């Protein structure tokens, strides 16, 4: 116990130490060596998390912490807890973060905000780590917003650029909408369960869940109130789940709150790789996975989750088809893949026995996705670095020869994303499809999940297609180098290549090592206490075949379109110009949101301002003038005649005395 607690505390403390150290010493002392604290901390933390992973064999959780807030019934300790789910998240975060940090050393090397970058980077890792180690909803929320802050700071890293500043604000605000939901969920959980502790909440729910089967007519004491079972498992739980889902949608960029993520690409590419691809955006998935015991009781919410995921996956994939900015394609693919994970999480709707498998599928996809998406982003970064910041696919091309290593790793990443076996993406995507397939049989939402399964397969096809498109346009064909590149147009340096290799290796290996072939991941995660009893689901050969066909078909089509017959795409675009227009304008979602949300609110603000100035304040001023008007009425009384005054006072006195006498 003690040892594990120390491990946890160290994992939490080390990155923040690095952050503070870099912030304090960076600009004056460390300067170009500002990355060392971060690298050291991340390396150390990675070792610790792996140690944690291996010592987790018993499936137990460990805690360490102190009182943070204690008032009334609100008792919030800062307490770290580790279970298998956390351990996996920790390893993923630290591994990807370390590699991205190494990449950043090369990528950011002459930026004036070098120290600032690494300071925020470490802070982000700290927040992310604490987010996954939190043992209660409030701490989770705190670090949930913390990662949001870091994301804001990194998107707006080059704050001189108006686009970056606007994107940063947009990200923060859209996230806040999600946070609103999460906060409401926290309040609801607190009032309904009387505690914010995960384990406590889950235990109570479990108890109730068990009681459901029995003839249960008593009341359950929650906090200070007596509630019947129906009162708790009914709408409050559904509301909690929908609010939690809103939070997850904001952070994980689900439709229609996904609009911030593509804009977030204004930040430095490595930051995008870490935050907006591999780790932070998966926090929503983590949250839903963590709260599986709650979601089990609200199948409607789970179904909604799957629908949202499906819509997101499809819409993002469609948009990605026609984007020309390499990073934006990757951003939309991230959105799409997150939608995939949501679909998986939702697939347990009305079928509690499937829940664990669904969570495993989603988390496994999260795990593999972190590797290949970080790889792809870093690849983009490498290209961008070489091309002097230009990643417009219309202006670059044929970089295969110029940047051979980048090309190779990018190809691996792209294949991983497209789901080409035996790379990581294939295995995880396959599991999701299996889970969806299972859901479409024998659950109350079977028909819905059949549709969603279809969408998932379609999305898989589209994913392979646009990934292939990006890959072929960037690396094949005639060599095109924009003039901004200048003397930079060469293969990236050591600092940037080593992480690429590391991530490529991960992309190739993790699927085979941990996935369906070995079931290691499955076994490990099922030790989690909070997950219901595991029931193995066996994939069918049909699904595997369809998956391979979709991936291969998409990639092949991309090869035909952009390599063999380059004139086809423009003809297609002309033929289906309406669709092309919608897609390239992202279905006008930003505009629609602006029209139905932002503009009316701004109008409301202007109206309220005028209302305040003229009605509320006008009323106050009017009331202030009333004495003046009254005074005008009574002015003639002051006529300056001494005797008139005396007469008035004497009459008054007489009346007063008479009134007084009338009482006797």
């Amino acid at each position, binding site marked *: 116990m003690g040892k594990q607690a120390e491990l946890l505390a160290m994992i939490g403390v080390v990155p923040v130490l690095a952050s503070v150290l870099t912030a304090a010493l960076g600009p004056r002392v460390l300067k170009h060596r500002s990355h060392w604290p971060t690298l050291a901390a991340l390396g150390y933390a990675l070792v610790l998390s792996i140690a944690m992973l291996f010592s987790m064999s018993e499936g137990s959780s460990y805690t360490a912490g102190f009182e943070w807030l204690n008032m009334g019934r*609100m008792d919030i300790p800062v307490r770290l807890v580790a279970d298998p789910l956390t351990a996996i998240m920790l390893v993923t975060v630290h591994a990807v973060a370390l590699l991205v940090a190494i990449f950043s050393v090369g990528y950011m090397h002459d930026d004036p905000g070098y120290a600032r970058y690494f300071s925020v980077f470490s802070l982000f890792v700290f927040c992310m780590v604490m987010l996954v180690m939190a043992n209660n909803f409030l701490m989770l*929320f705190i670090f949930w917003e913390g990662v949001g802050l870091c994301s804001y700071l990194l998107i707006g890293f080059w704050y001189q650029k108006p686009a970056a500043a606007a994107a940063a604000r947009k990200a923060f605000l859209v996230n806040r909408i999600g946070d609103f939901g999460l906060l409401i969920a926290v309040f609801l959980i607190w009032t309904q369960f009387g505690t914010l502790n995960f384990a406590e909440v889950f235990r109570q729910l479990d108890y109730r869940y068990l009681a459901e089967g029995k003839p249960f007519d008593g009341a359950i004491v929650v906090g200070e109130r007596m509630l019947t079972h129906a009162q708790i498992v009914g709408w409050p739980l559904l509301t909690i789940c929908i609010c939690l889902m809103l939070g997850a949608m904001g952070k994980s960029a689900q439709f229609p709150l996904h609009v911030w993520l593509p804009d977030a690409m204004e930040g430095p590419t490595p930051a995008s790789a870490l935050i907006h691809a591999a780790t932070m955006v998966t926090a929503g998935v983590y949250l839903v996975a963590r709260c599986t015991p709650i979601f089990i009781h609200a199948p409607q919410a789970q179904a909604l989750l799957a629908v949202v995921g499906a819509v997101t996956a499809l819409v993002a994939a469609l948009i990605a088809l026609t984007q020309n900015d390499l990073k934006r394609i990757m951003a939309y693919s991230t959105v799409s893949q997150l939608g995939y994970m949501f679909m998986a999480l939702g697939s347990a709707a009305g079928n509690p026995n499937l829940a664990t498998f669904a969570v495993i599928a989603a988390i496994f996809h999260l795990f593999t996705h972190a590797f290949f998406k970080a790889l792809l982003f870093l690849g983009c970064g490498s290209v961008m670095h070489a091309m002097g910041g230009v990643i417009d696919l219309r202006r670059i091309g044929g970089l295969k020869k110029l940047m051979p290593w980048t090309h190779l790793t990018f190809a691996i990443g792209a294949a991983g994303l497209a789901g080409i076996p035996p790379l990581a993406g294939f295995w995880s995507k396959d599991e999701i499809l299996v889970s969806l397939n299972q859901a479409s049989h024998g659950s109350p939402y079977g028909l819905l999940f059949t549709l969603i399964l279809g969408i998932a397969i379609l999305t898989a096809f589209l994913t392979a297609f646009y990934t292939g498109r990006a890959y072929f346009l960037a690396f094949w064909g005639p060599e095109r180098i924009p003039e901004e590149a200048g003397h930079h147009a060469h293969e990236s340096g050591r600092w940037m290549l080593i992480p690429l290799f590391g991530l490529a290796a991960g992309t190739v290996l993790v699927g085979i090592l941990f996935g369906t072939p070995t079931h290691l991941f499955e076994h490990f995660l099922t030790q989690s206490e909070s997950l219901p009893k595991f029931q193995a689901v066996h994939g069918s050969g049909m699904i595997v075949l369809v998956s391979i066909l979709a991936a291969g078909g998409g990639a092949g089509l991309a090869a035909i379109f952009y390599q063999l017959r380059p004139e086809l795409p423009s003809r297609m675009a002309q033929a289906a110009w309406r669709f092309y227009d919608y897609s390239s304008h992202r279905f006008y979602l930003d505009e629609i949101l602006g029209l139905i949300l932002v503009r009316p609110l701004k109008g409301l*603000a202007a109206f309220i301002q005028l209302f305040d100035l003229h009605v509320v304040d006008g009323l106050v001023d009017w009331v202030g003038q009333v004495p003046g008007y009254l005074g005008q009425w009574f002015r003639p009384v002051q006529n300056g005649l001494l005797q008139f005054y005396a007469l008035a006072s004497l009459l008054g006195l007489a009346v007063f005395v008479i009134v007084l006498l009338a009482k006797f």
Partner: protein
Amino acid sequence: MDKCLLLMMIFAPLLAAVVVLLLGSNQLVRIRQVSLAAALLSLLCALHVAWHYQSATGRTAEEPFASDPAFEIRVPWLSYLPSPSGAPSPSIEFHLGVDGLSLWLIVLTALLMVSAVLISWKSIQTNPSGYYALLMLLASGMLGVFCALDIVLFYIFFEFTLLPLFFLIGLWGGPQKRYAARKFFLYTLAGSLVTLVGLVAIVLSLVGQGQPMTFSLPELARQVAIQPLPGELQQWIFLALFAGLAIKVPLFPFHTWLPLAHVEAPTAGSVLLAGVLLKLGTYGFLRLCIPMVPLASVQIGLPLVGVLATVGILYGSFCALAQTDIKKMVAYSSVAHLGFCMLGLFALNAEGMSGALLQMVNHGLSTGLLFLLVGMIYDRYHTRQMTALGGLNQRMPILGLIMMFTCLSSIGLPGLNGFVGEFLCLSGMFARHPIYAVWGTLGIILGAWYLLTFVMKCFHGPLKEPHVAEGAIIPDMDRRELSATLPLVALCLWIGLYPKPFLDRMKPEMEALSQRIKQAQKVQVYR
């Protein structure tokens, strides 16, 4: 020694005011030094009190206001009747003390005073002796309100704060200063006169119930606990107290004096107005309304304040969103923030009320900081229009950093002070009445919207600054400005990262008060 601390804290500024007036306007340097010394002395006393403060033990619902006896001063002041028998006659007392309700507000006030003196260092050139004397008078008044444990003394200090600020706005303010000062003064005075009626009603109706006459707040609270006032009378008293306090807070429809006064006031005036004077209203609710008329607070306070505060949060946020003047935006944001505060207060449970008290301190720190920083911008560019400014981060990185920090604290980012207060307020309200809390929570989205828009417009993007004198280099924050802001920043961080010590010192009072509310409701049910 300890007994004199409160006296020293309150009267050091008063003494400084006299000295400053005697010095006359010519000795600018001396004036500043004396004022700063007095403010620092007050701060030292306040910190000493906070450090050595011991919560009186055994606090119950009957006796929520037992101040720390180590610092208590109690001297009969105005005797009501001579008592031939030698028994203590009922008298208005000079009764000062510190308890969990006032402790942090006292520290906040003393801290903000130092900042206020420092920020006025160079910007006040006309008649500085008058200015600093008024500032010091204001400090005395504000500290006095928080220390007063006698209902009449409380009211005296409460009204005493009006006058210096009236002159500060009216003499050293902006172009519309006369109108602003007059409105501020008349509006708040009109309300607080009704409050006086309420205060007198509390004392006299307790006497009417056969209790011995007293003006001491702890005594009154005890009497009310033993024999609560009748329900209808409670409601009238509540409404009377509400009239003045709601204007002071200011709650939604009574807020219009605030933006005007803020915009026109000199920077130090704005800082103290937002940082401390608005708290007099919320503090009044906490000190007078809730313990004295608990039943009315539940019966009419909750729906009334709940609706007004919720509307105020959204309304203030939208107004702030529409502003182009930075100071006006901050002023409207105060309306929203105090909406949170009131929401927490009238949750009437320990979480909500402690959140409200913490939020008072937080708002003092964050909004005080915002006004300080806006003042610094105004000192440099002589404009407060967002449209005229842009990309200031490049010119003044430190100012930009602190501004960013302050805005984040103001929008309630976890890890900074604003969050703890808002969270406790809203969660308290959620337990009491979820609908208000949900609407109030929407306010945090809007808060982020207008503050981040302001940061984006003024501090991000390409550099844009109004024309300043030829060849003049706009400097970043200097040491004086840093020393005015950094203590506040540090306190923001501390409260945000580890609020427990702050909350622990107010915990007994809060739990006693919430206990009292519960008792009042129970009595109502079983009657």
